[in-house]
């Protein structure tokens, strides 16, 4: 396993081989046991909400009320699951696939726009580059929430696209391009310039450069950003609640049924479990690409 780390390190930065003679204090067995205990403790507690969701969505309401930690009782598991999931699905069904689709489209567009913008600002040379970069980067100083009192009437009254998924996505895409550009630009600029030079000599145009060099070379970070956008839109609550009335998203409908007490105990956990399904995909992708955390090297201000 050490080789894996070393290989990756070689890509990022040349690193000296570890000399055998020196023994670090933490490598002692006792220290290792302490370290493992602490990390596993943190791990277990991070699972608390997920654990509650998993066990309680297969329990009857009374069982949840008595002890939320207990495992589902085998004899009632089918009855409880049937009861909880049918109730939960009845609430989520009208908006579930719509929300996933909207989040997917939104994340795709946000990533694409961010990447194109970052590509232009990194690869192209033009006179107003610095000015335009400043124009974008200044927006990072402005919290997105400040614009809502203006944005809501703009979307609802001027554009008349309130209460629609289009009106929901449009400003998010418009606002997200800055963060996307800012993140991706850092990574794009770390790509070797020589690759671009030689490709240009071979007659590659910008489209080819962008799709054949820039994107493949920075796939992890683009994916990271895409996943961030996807779960960002999927998890969005404030903006959705401001702009949607009859159209809802999974988050707004979950909040409203739980806040009103319409759905309780087992059924609410079943609802949380159903709502987690799209994020399982993102978690699996994250596990594959980001476990090493190496993309973080480029994350800085």
């Amino acid at each position, binding site marked *: 396993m050490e080789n894996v780390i070393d290989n990756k390190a070689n890509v990022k930065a040349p690193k000296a081989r570890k000399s055998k003679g020196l023994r670090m204090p*933490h490598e002692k067995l006792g220290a290792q046991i302490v370290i493992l205990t602490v990390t596993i403790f943190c791990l277990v507690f991070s699972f608390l*909400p997920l654990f509650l969701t998993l066990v309680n969505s297969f329990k009857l309401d009374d069982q949840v009320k008595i002890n939320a930690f207990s495992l589902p009782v085998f004899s009632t598991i089918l009855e409880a699951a049937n009861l909880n999931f049918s109730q939960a699905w009845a609430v989520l069904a009208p908006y579930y696939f719509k929300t996933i689709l909207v989040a997917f489209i939104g994340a795709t567009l946000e990533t694409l726009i961010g990447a194109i913008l970052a590509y232009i600002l990194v690869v192209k040379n033009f006179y107003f580059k610095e000015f335009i970069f400043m124009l974008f980067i200044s927006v990072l100083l402005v919290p997105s929430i400040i*614009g809502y009192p203006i944005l809501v009437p703009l979307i609802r009254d001027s554009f*008349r696209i309130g209460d629609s998924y289009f009106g929901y996505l449009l400003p998010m895409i418009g606002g997200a391009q800055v963060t996307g550009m800012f993140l991706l630009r850092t990574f794009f600029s770390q790509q070797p310039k020589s690759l671009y030079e030689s490709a240009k000599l071979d007659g590659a145009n910008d489209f080819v450069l962008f799709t054949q060099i820039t994107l493949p070379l920075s796939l992890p970070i683009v994916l990271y950003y895409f996943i961030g956008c996807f779960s960002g839109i999927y998890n969005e609550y404030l903006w959705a609640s401001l702009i949607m009335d009859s159209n809802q998203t999974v988050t707004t409908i979950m909040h409203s049924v739980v806040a009103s007490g319409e759905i309780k105990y087992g059924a609410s956990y079943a609802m949380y479990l159903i709502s987690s399904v799209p*994020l399982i995909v993102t978690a699996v992708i994250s596990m594959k690409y980001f*476990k090493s955390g190496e993309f973080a090297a480029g994350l800085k201000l």
Partner: protein
Amino acid sequence: MAIGVTNQDKKKARNTTSILSVLLALFTILTVVFGVLIPSSNEKKSVGASEPIKALVEGEDGTDYFLLSDAAMYRYDAFTDELISIFPLSDVQTLLQSKGDVDKLLDGSLNQWTAKYVAGKNGEDFYLLVDGNGNIFKLLDDGVRLSMTEDYFLADASTGKLDVESYDDQNGMLYCLVLEKDSSYYIYRLNMDDLRSGVTKKKQLWDLDLEGTTATSQKIVPLTSAKTGVLAFEVTEESIYLFKNGGGVVRVGLGLTDYVDENGNEFDYLNVVKEYYEQGRDKLAEETAYYSYFRTLLLQNDKNTHSEAEIAAADGEQVIAWYKDLVSVTKFNKENKNAKDEAKLAVSETFIKENVWCEDYDSASRSLHVNKDYVDSRYYSILYAGDSNIGGIVYSEKNKAIYFTNFLDGYLYSVEKEAVDKAECGAFLSDIATKMSSVKFSSKRKFSTFGNALGINKFANTLYLRFENEQTISIVDINDKENYKVLYTFEGNFDVLTLTGDKDNKVTHVLRQVTNVDIHANTVTRLYACTYEPSTLQNKSLSVLLFVTFLIISVLLLAVAIWFFIAMKNERALYRLKIIQKDLKKNKWVYLALSFFVIMLFMFCYYEAIGAISMSFFDYTQEKPAWIWNNFANYIKILNDSTFWLSIGNMLFFLVFDLILCIVPPLIFAFLLILIRNKTASGLIRSLMFIPSIIPSMATMLIWRTGIYGDTGIMNQIIGASVPIDFLGNTSYARWALMFMGFPFVGGYLIFYGGMMNIPEEYHEAGRLEGLGIVKRFLLIDVPLIMPQIKYIFIMTFISSVQNYARTYILASTGTTTPVESMYTTMMIHGDYGKASAYATLIFLFLFAAVATNFKMQKKETMGEDL
């Protein structure tokens, strides 16, 4: 210097400058047109939009209706709902000021001045405007616009406030119900004919004679006291009906000019009633002190049980009192005043009918005390509510019937007008009313107890019923007397001030918004604040959009033109221009693509940020989307609000702990992961750490809210207290409970881990050789080397913590309000965008100050490194 600049270039620059100047002039004109001229016409329309609409008045023939606010009178076409014209009430003010009559006003000023009533008939040349103080103004009407005339009547100290008004266009009389200073209602009658002939001596014309003897205006006897209140006031050809709050009808006959007494004198009916009153009063005067005494005694004795005691009768020996809510009689012995005679009599209808009765006895006032024997029921009668408690009452001219809702049994009742007229004085309304049992509503529905429970559409002859416990309005067709039908039941979320309708049978109800409900199409159109008809709104936003676009183009053109102008003189500038020109040509696709991004940026970032900061200085609410300067009132309100300072404290509390919890635990956790020797174990832990993130953040917060902190949540299950602890509802725990959410706070370790992974091993070895222990290595090597990541997380946490609205809102905790949550509630619940903008601006200023300092330090490195 000036290499590559030829004379030709100079010539080109000159030509371009002139072309640019022409374009600039053109766009400047367009900007001015859209920015100044069109908005100013809109602005004129939006006069008064600063105030909520107070009343809706139908035009007499249903072709138009008026919405009255404190600042203007908006005239709408009843068929198309289009705004026809606006009469700004400042015109009245201007006229009064020019005449020097402002001092004569009741309040001595026109502050808090409200229009209350408009009377008139469409097609005639005038309307009457009555304001809340009882001042009456005659307005000329040209069919579209209204304009002031010099005919007006100013209420003064001798007259009270006009309360309910009605215009009898048949006889050309304006009847006003006036609440006078003695807390009694009086009817005034004003003859419109004199107005129409344009009498110049307006003062004389309008002066109301309190003795009620002049032909043009008359004051009728006090009818009921302010305590009881008047629900509605209906003038028909024959009678005036006064519907009292809670029940009861007072009828004053009209139009009977043939009354002749035994001496052959012709009497005006109003004078007849007046005389009854005078006689009754004389008789009453003797007993006033006596009554007063017993009333006090009665109220003292029964304070706890019955507050509304009425003196029913006194026969000189004893006083008999009865209660509104309990039909029983208590006898008082005149001789032994201090003791209440415990004998209680069951009150019967006949008892009340046959006894002397007094109406709304008030010891301080000259109360009406009419002996039944004096009353000629042709002219004056009072009907009691009986078993009904009336929430709303209307009169249908077509059916010649009175309709009322009885919220005791939840039925609608109808009474023929003839039956009311014929009924003996003192009769019960419930005896002569017919229950409209064909109109049934769900037993769950309760009629509103307020005055707006019932409305009538005069033109379609339908009733509108409002229910209190459900947001429902039902429409009942009363055209077929044999078979009343519920046409439609509309459900929605609204506050109702006025229920009225037009010929299309639309319901228009007013309070916060004017909403038109089209019962045929089953649609609801929200007309924002009356001044903003959808069409006007669209035009306005379009013109604003065009104005902004043209303004930007003009500014850009100006900048470019100035540059070219300088270039004409200065060779260096010309040279630079040439370079830019070349660059623009070469990178035209780049600029084209960028223009899309920049437009998006301006539309969804800059416009909002600049707009919100600007809006924070204005009144701008959901009901009245108009920018009205308010002298920093939004900020003053916020800064004077003590909860704001509490919320700042909460914000700082969360900020400090968020910063600590988002940096320290993940940093240590990442470091521990680095230290794990067994790379399989470390890899497994890192993989597993992704799994909890599959739960959406909303679900996580809801789990903490109900599953962990809730009444049956695990915290309470663990503690096992008999009474569940309300962690989020208790001010002293709530902040800590929120803070503890997210335990063990290591979720954000990945970026630190990645940073630490990339620290070359030889640093650690060197540290080891220097004898650094594990803690010292962490503090002196790892932490300083991943400072960029720490800064990144620091800034991001800073920004998101201050903006974290979801935590306090979704967990519904008490005492944990933050400025962001206040902003959200101000915007979404109160619809006050101006104040919400002020909150947003304050949050922005705080964040800007904090983040800009940091950015300034970092910007140079980043720019230098990457560009």
